[in-house]
């Protein structure tokens, strides 16, 4: 049933803003870094080794700012579909469980986040190729020290996704979940560079990609799925306690 609901939730977002955002958010990050590179450095100033930093710059921008906000927006739009169109009753008077619907929506949000991340990776490759056309040295640009930088951010964003999903499910308007996202992203930015980052899930994507120690990066990556599942189950438990309509 979850599989059917997943397909249905995908159908519901057809021709909607969430699809546009999945394309626009990662492209905006790559375009910004591309333009900054063009503006800040002339081709002779950059070695191929420096160009490998382009990856880290894109991933940092994505993990620190855009990903937490994108996750908040996605979960808000996926749940807002029901709030806006007053379709909770319509869906829940069909033979499905509330928990199944909650799970299917979370899975759609995860799928969208992964899509956005893949788009980000593809756009980064394209941007590097375009920089090569402008005369930048690309030898070593794909020689990454660790492949973790390519996949850590979406994994580390799972706790944020679980929290934002719960908030978007419960609140009828986009305002509370988006406000929480904006404030928490900036708090996460501050806390992420301190030793208290463990207590702030919004800092996990940042720590997983930009922490100065590998241990912290690995811890953020391993801790996030566990924390994400725990928060999701907590949300599910709260859900069963109250009547939705």
């Amino acid at each position, binding site marked *: 049933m979850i599989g059917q609901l997943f397909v249905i939730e995908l159908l*519901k977002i057809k*021709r909607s803003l969430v699809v546009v955002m999945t394309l626009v958010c990662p492209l905006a990050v790559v375009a910004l870094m591309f333009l900054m590179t063009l503006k800040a450095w002339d081709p002779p100033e950059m070695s191929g080794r420096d160009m490998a930093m382009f990856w880290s710059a894109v991933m940092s921008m994505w993990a620190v700012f855009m990903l937490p906000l994108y996750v908040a927006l996605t979960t808000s739009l996926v749940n807002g579909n029901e709030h806006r169109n*007053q379709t909770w*009753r*319509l869906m829940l*008077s*069909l*033979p499905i469980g509330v928990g199944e619907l909650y799970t299917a929506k979370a899975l759609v949000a995860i799928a969208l986040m992964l899509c956005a991340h893949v788009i980000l990776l593809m756009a980064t490759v394209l941007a590097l190729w375009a920089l090569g056309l402008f005369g930048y040295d690309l030898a070593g640009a794909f020689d990454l020290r660790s492949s973790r930088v390519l996949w850590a951010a979406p994994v580390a964003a799972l706790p944020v996704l679980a929290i934002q999903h719960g908030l978007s499910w419960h609140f009828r308007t986009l305002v509370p979940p988006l406000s929480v996202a904006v404030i928490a992203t900036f708090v996460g930015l501050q806390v992420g560079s301190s030793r208290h980052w463990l207590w702030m899930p919004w800092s996990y994507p940042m720590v997983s990609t930009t922490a100065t120690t590998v241990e912290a990066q690995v811890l953020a990556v391993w801790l996030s799925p566990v924390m994400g599942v725990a928060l999701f189950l907590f949300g599910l438990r709260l859900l069963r306690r109250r009547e939705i*309509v």
Partner: protein
Amino acid sequence: MGLAIDLREVDKSFGHHRVLRQLDLQVPERSVFAFLGNNGHGKSTTIRLIAGLATADAGHVQVLGRDIRLERRAVLAQMGCLIEAPSAYPNLTAYEFLSIATRLKRLPDSEIGRVLELVGLHVDRRQRIEHFSLGMKQRLALAHALVGKPRLLVLDEPTNGLDPDGMQDIRRLLSTLPERADCTIFFSSHLLDEVEKTATHMAVLHHGSVRLQASIRDLTQALPSVLSLDVDVPERAVALLYACGHAAELDGDGRVAIPGITRQVAGQVHRVLMDAGVTLFESVHRKPSLEQWFLQTAVAEGDAR
């Protein structure tokens, strides 16, 4: 005949506000059951309990012979619901929207065509819902409820927002469905005219409990009839009939009205008037409509309070 819906001694409160009090409601199978009541008296709450969207604080809620709390999914698989405003996803087409229900009820895609045909939206199946009128949305919501030939249809004010033609279509559909599709229809309404034309049974909800529950046929037979006479001298006719022991009175149109009268007594009344030389232009045996009856009852209750 079994019961499609059986509610016994149901209580439901929201915070300190007690919405339903010892509610008893029995809906016979294959009936078109109208659920009446003023706004705020608990109609929607009752419907939400029946549809498994809320749980009762006390009492039993049996739908299609099963406890909705314990077997919600099995009951909902055999039910179609239209609860409050017609809601849909405006970015989807009618076909895509109905595919949600067919997928979840594990039905073939041909079912979508069948229900769209039934509500007259087959031609618009590829049109996006955002371009639909309110009436079309209402019909689409009804089509959604009809997916899978449900044994029980629960409809909350199904003709809300429809134009007279649309109302007529839905009424026709509702009154013919139980025979065509072997299902029970339970609908709430505040349009008594609609109830009289569509329903076979009705219940009136008042401050959270059912005040009256009956078949429409029994109810209309039990309604007191009035003999209404158009005569040349109404005041004299009233005096004559009063003297003969009939509770005659003048109504607002200057006609003589004698309530609660039988066919035999009507003959005596005519004879008395004609013997006294009163000219009788017209004599009509009238029963009040459900609407008049409901209004009178509501007014009487208001006076009593």
